[in-house]
């Protein structure tokens, strides 16, 4: 009887949050995947027939290049974030605690600013009539008619800007726990700096690296606002196409097909993150998203 009552209490306590998430998260996600197999009606709604045509439309000649661009922008921005976060977090974890706290605060503060405004700041910064462009022209780095905005490179820079702190924090958390005596031991045993770094330091902070890769790569794949504001038609990503199909063409099944594709693209890294979280070692850094 006791265990029955306990079970009942558990269900009562779990029901509000789990019920809410099933209703507003699980069902809508299944709905998106199901809608990818529906036709669209001419009034911008969802048709009442099941069809594979919507999925077939994904072979539309525009899509492969957009999917490819989404992938390379996400991969390259993740690599840049990780490669710059490793030395920076190494430096931060080696200085005095008081200075560590100051630098961490300096890293976090800009990200209290509204997301849209931070992206807009880049638009102002890279603007054709802006100060930065003029400096580049005066230094003969750029020609007067060079365009800094509305190109994939601008999107890349702003993705890195937006997600770099999410790479810095978990890698720093791992570096801070790393025992640096191990590096000295490696030097004593004849390793040079590069060997010690690659074979002792990097394996030591691998959990932080994995968290960093996931928290940069997944949101980068789903970028929509960044290419929308600093990119032009030549820098569109999947997110922009989903929004266009939803708001401009009002073709919801088509938007669903693209979203289903994106969902499957993020499920793999998300599953890796979840398996790691629930079945392997607990890493407090992974909670610090």
């Amino acid at each position, binding site marked *: 009887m006791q265990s029955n009552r306990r079970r009942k209490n558990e269900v009562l306590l779990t029901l509000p*949050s789990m019920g*809410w998430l099933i209703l507003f998260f699980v069902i809508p996600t299944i709905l998106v995947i199901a809608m990818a197999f529906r036709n669209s009606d001419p009034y911008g709604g969802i048709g009442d027939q099941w069809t594979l045509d919507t999925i077939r439309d994904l072979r539309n000649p525009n899509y492969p290049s957009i999917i490819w661009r989404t992938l390379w922008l996400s991969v390259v921005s993740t690599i840049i974030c990780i490669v710059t976060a490793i030395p920076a977090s190494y430096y931060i974890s080696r200085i005095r605690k008081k200075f560590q706290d100051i630098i961490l605060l300096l890293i976090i503060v800009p990200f209290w600013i509204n997301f849209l405004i931070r992206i807009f700041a880049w638009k102002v910064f890279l603007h054709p009539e802006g100060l930065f462009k003029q400096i580049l022209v005066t230094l003969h780095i750029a020609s007067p008619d060079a365009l800094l905005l509305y190109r994939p490179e601008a999107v890349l820079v702003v993705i890195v800007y937006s997600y770099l702190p999410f790479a810095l924090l978990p890698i720093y958390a791992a570096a801070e726990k790393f025992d640096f005596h191990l590096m000295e031991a490696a030097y004593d045993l004849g390793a040079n700096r590069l060997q010690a770094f690659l074979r002792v330091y990097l394996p030591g902070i691998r959990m932080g690296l994995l968290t960093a890769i996931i928290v940069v790569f997944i949101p980068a794949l789903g970028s929509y606002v960044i290419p929308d504001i600093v990119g032009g038609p030549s820098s569109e990503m999947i997110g922009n196409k989903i929004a266009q199909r939803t708001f401009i063409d009002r073709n919801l099944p088509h938007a669903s097909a693209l979203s289903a594709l994106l969902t499957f693209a993020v499920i793999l890294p998300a599953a890796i993150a979840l398996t790691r979280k629930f079945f392997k070692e607990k890493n407090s850094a992974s909670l610090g998203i």
Partner: protein
Amino acid sequence: MKKSRFPLYITIAILIFFYLPIIIVFAQSFNASRFGGAWKGFTLSWYWKLFSDKNIWHALTNTLIIAVSSTFVSVILGTLAAFALYKYKTKLQISHNILIYFPLVIPDILMGISLLLFFVSLNIGLGLVTIFLAHVTFSMSYVAMVVLGRFQDFDYSIMEAALDLGATWRTAVRKIMIPYLMPGIAAGGLLAFTLSLDDFVITFFVSGPDSTTLPLYIYSMMRHGSPSVINALSVLMVAFTFIIVFLSKKLLEAKE
């Protein structure tokens, strides 16, 4: 071995990278020239233009209504979820935990489009109510994670001791558990509140004609309005964020 200075240079470069665009926006908000190729004199006119815009006040009201209501509900749901995850170690809780974790990793645009399809299929009119439902859905997981972090160090035997000494369940929760969890609940609530204030993508998908929030309004200004007015608005919002953070820090210090 001589210490390499390379990590120091990278750290400095990152900090410059983080602050440069923000500093430009600050300077621009006082510049009489629109794009700041040159400094054409100090002006406050962008700020005046901003204050005379009535739509902003409407958007701000909507934003606050949604932020306050969604924070309230997500704090309750998130705290209950954290308690269940802490107290029971069953298979149900593993799936519960995975379910709570998912909204944290899924890109905003996917949550936006799926909720939009959900509301459209059920013929629910888009507006403040749908924005509220969406905001609770994404904030709840953050609250649950933060409160669960606080729970990790909670000694449940204190609750059992109170119950043995004749306290009712209700009293034990109110006098022992809630006060202990309060810093976690407050931090989770603050996070939910800021996430709600900040959200653009999900809100964009589930909003209706009369439910413009501040981020939605900023977005439409970016597309059609004067960039200098947005610069001025950015400066005010940054100042506002700093005041909030400063006050909450003072409050927490006063409590300790």
